[in-house]
């Protein structure tokens, strides 16, 4: 559950959107206020738009903002639908950023509503924070917002994880990828004084280098299974092939031969042909199989063979996992998991690789 509040500016200036997690612990308003306090320094040059009562209006006023309030809700009785409505309202208002407070559930609701049509950033107040769309802490969320609105932060696509609540209550963690949000990130928040900091590649350039490297190695005789994610999508972009962001697609001779395939569809198209899987781990947790790509079943993996699995990841993603791993697998089949475990190479750039461990 969660609510969202959007904020919109007037004369095309910066806009700040804020969402609020309703029904969460009392700590949530406090953390939201923590984030908002960082933004008060630019209060005069932005317009804050929010949803009523405890979905944002109260917190905004508490911080000295005079927000524009949209929508109507039942105080203390908000639902996921309110979250979705708020996000949509913000999008319609052409906000520059939706700032929402909550956990994975809130992120999921925001994501389903606005996808990547508008930048969004999460203030972490929920218990389950597995999505990569949240700032490290509320204060950072506020700071990053200010930087973004000043044009000093870049955007990247970050995974939104949906955690199975029932499983969670039973003590099992079961999260799967349910989408992506466009999230601000600090490419160069701090400058290393000795190194050539200007040489740090941003995510897009890193992904492009990896894509260049992969494409150069592609053989016509081989079928390539492209897993979900933006790093893999960059490979498709390099080939000029349209790839589904969340689906598994099949490429042969640099053309798309299958789109958004399930396990059966994949196995049928592959037959006995030589195939490789191109996969990228999910940030933070590091799953390569078992969280965002159930279509890559144990049967598919065994069909393709361990040595034909090409793992790609930008250096900053790899850094968020570990750092340097291990990568995780949870295919549902112990034997397959065991087969996948051990040391693997990950392509991190043009003619650049890293050796990491895979565990189950």
């Amino acid at each position: 559950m969660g609510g969202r509040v959007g904020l919109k500016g007037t004369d095309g200036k910066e806009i700040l959107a804020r969402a609020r997690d309703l029904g969460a612990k009392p700590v949530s308003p406090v953390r939201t206020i923590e984030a908002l306090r960082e933004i008060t320094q630019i209060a005069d040059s932005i317009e804050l738009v929010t949803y009523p009562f405890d979905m944002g209006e109260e917190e905004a006023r508490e911080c000295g903002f005079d927000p524009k309030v949209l929508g109507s809700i039942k105080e203390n009785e908000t639902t996921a639908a309110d979250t979705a409505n708020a996000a949509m309202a913000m999008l319609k208002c052409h906000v520059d950023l939706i700032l929402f407070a909550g956990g994975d559930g809130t992120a999921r609701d925001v994501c389903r509503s606005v996808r990547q049509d508008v930048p969004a950033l999460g203030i972490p107040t929920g218990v389950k924070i597995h999505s990569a769309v949240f700032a490290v802490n509320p204060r950072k969320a506020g700071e990053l917002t200010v930087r973004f609105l000043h044009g000093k932060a870049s955007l990247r696509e970050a995974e939104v994880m949906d955690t199975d609540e029932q499983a969670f209550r039973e003590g099992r963690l079961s999260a799967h990828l349910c989408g992506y949000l466009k999230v601000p990130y600090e490419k160069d928040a701090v400058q290393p004084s000795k190194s050539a900091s200007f040489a740090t590649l941003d995510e897009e350039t890193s992904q492009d280098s990896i894509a260049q490297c992969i494409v150069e190695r592609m053989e016509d005789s081989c079928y390539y299974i492209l897993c979900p994610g933006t790093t893999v999508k960059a490979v498709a972009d390099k080939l000029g092939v349209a790839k589904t962001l969340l689906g598994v697609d099949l490429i042969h001779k640099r053309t798309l031969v299958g789109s958004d395939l399930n396990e059966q569809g994949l196995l049928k198209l592959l037959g006995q042909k030589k195939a490789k899987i191109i996969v990228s781990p999910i940030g933070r947790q590091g799953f390569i199989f078992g969280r965002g790509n159930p279509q890559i079943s144990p049967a598919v993996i065994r069909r393709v063979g361990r040595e034909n699995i090409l793992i790609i990841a930008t250096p900053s993603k790899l850094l968020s996992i570990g750092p340097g791993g291990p990568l995780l697998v949870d295919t549902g089949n112990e034997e397959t998991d065991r087969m996948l475990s051990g040391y693997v190479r990950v392509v991190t750039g043009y003619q650049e690789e890293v050796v990491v461990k895979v565990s189950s």
Partner: protein
Amino acid sequence: MTENGIPGYRAVAWNEPLIFQLGRKGRRGSTILAAEDQIKVESGDVRSRIPEAMRRKESANLPELSEPEVVRHFIRLSQQNFGVDSGVMIGHGTCTMKYNPKINETLARSPRLTRIHPLQDTSTVQGILEIMYRLAKLLCTLSGMDEFSLQPRGGAHAVLTNARIIRAYHKLNGELEQRNEIVTTVLSHPCNGGSPAVAGFKVITLYPDPETGTPNVETLKAAVSKHTAGMTITDPYDTGIFDPCIDEYIKIIHEAGGLVAVDQANANSLLGRLRIGDVGADLCHFNLHKSFSAPHGSHGPGSAPVGVKKHLVGFLPVPTLEFDGSKYYLDYDRPHSIGKVSGFHGVIPAVLKAYAWIMAMGEEGLRETSEVAVINNNYLIEKLRKVRGVTLPWNKNHPRRLQEARFSLQQMMEETGVGIDDVNRRMVDFGIQKCFTSHEPWIVPEPFTPEPPESTPKEDLDRFSDVLRQISREAYTNPEIVKKAPHNCTISRMDLSSPRDPKKWALTWRAYLSKNK
């Protein structure tokens, strides 16, 4: 002015314009008298001797100042300087900012050195050649390598030279096509990956074990194959940890048919104690501007001689410096050499200063150098670990370090919102140099890496940690002071958008004018 017992500091702020913005048209420092008639007759039209294509069409857009204005301008700029001779430079880890002895500066400025030229006949410059030869031999003794070349101009250049030697070695053995990979570690200097990439290799990077801070041997074994040309590694690392498995790495790489090049930027802790050649390394380099007291002149001029074992001597850059029993000479007749890697023979002033320093120190002095450097560093570690918000990564496995240590302010960041960027900007308010953070990628979050070389007095170590403790106190009680720092410096915050923007950046006045019409 004192702050909690720490002597105060306030930087000079002259708001001095660029020299191009000073002066007046027509002003001169001194005028040159016109030549007398007889001289004019004898010399003829001197200007006509300059080839037509090189003659200026317009006069140069030079600043026009009187001599006092010039003097004042540069004195003011110098007053706004901060460097190893004016302040505490402990912050600059891995740079090894030791004192540059002034006697060596005087020697290097002697006309006996400044008035000679590398194109002179070698018979007329035997003195400096002898010094170069002797330095090379001293570096061999210190490292356990067989020959040194003084040619490379800095660390990345040295690693590139070594990578090229590795290529030449495999090419001669007919294995270069197969051996196209170099393995390195992520905590080695980035050039340990970058330079081999420039040399044409694919670079395989190993990450450290989260517990130990160094890669485990299994990871290297998994990375090595018939494609392995060799390994580059910085040892000890900037984290101050000496990789305890380096001898095993060398064994594994050798078994696979590869060569190992060790980056000894951090050799200050090893002088007189460990010879990397004895451990099995095939190649290495030293940074004269680090361990050997030659100055860091605004990040240069560097000098990074490379050392190799016998089986690689034939590949060294030309010319090498040889001695035939009676005279020193330059040898260009080396059919397997990788060729020329730089103009002339090396960074001679740095060579001279390094030689003079080693000779002044002697064997005893070198051993004392490494010992005091390590003691200084561990004293500092003990003090800094007690500062609230500061942690030492991998401290369970490595509570003691060698020449430097990498700390983290992640705890301070989480608890106060103040991180290393803020702390660094506040540090300069106390008249001490800010800290080197870390090379990228930042394995350690909110990192800082101080290094107190042997020339650091204990008072500086105490002052540095007192300042850090004071800043920590501020972070936990009144973070705005830290976040809005610096308060006492020449300028406040820098706008870093211009150096990043091709439409704005300008390295010359002319470029600036063209972009800002």
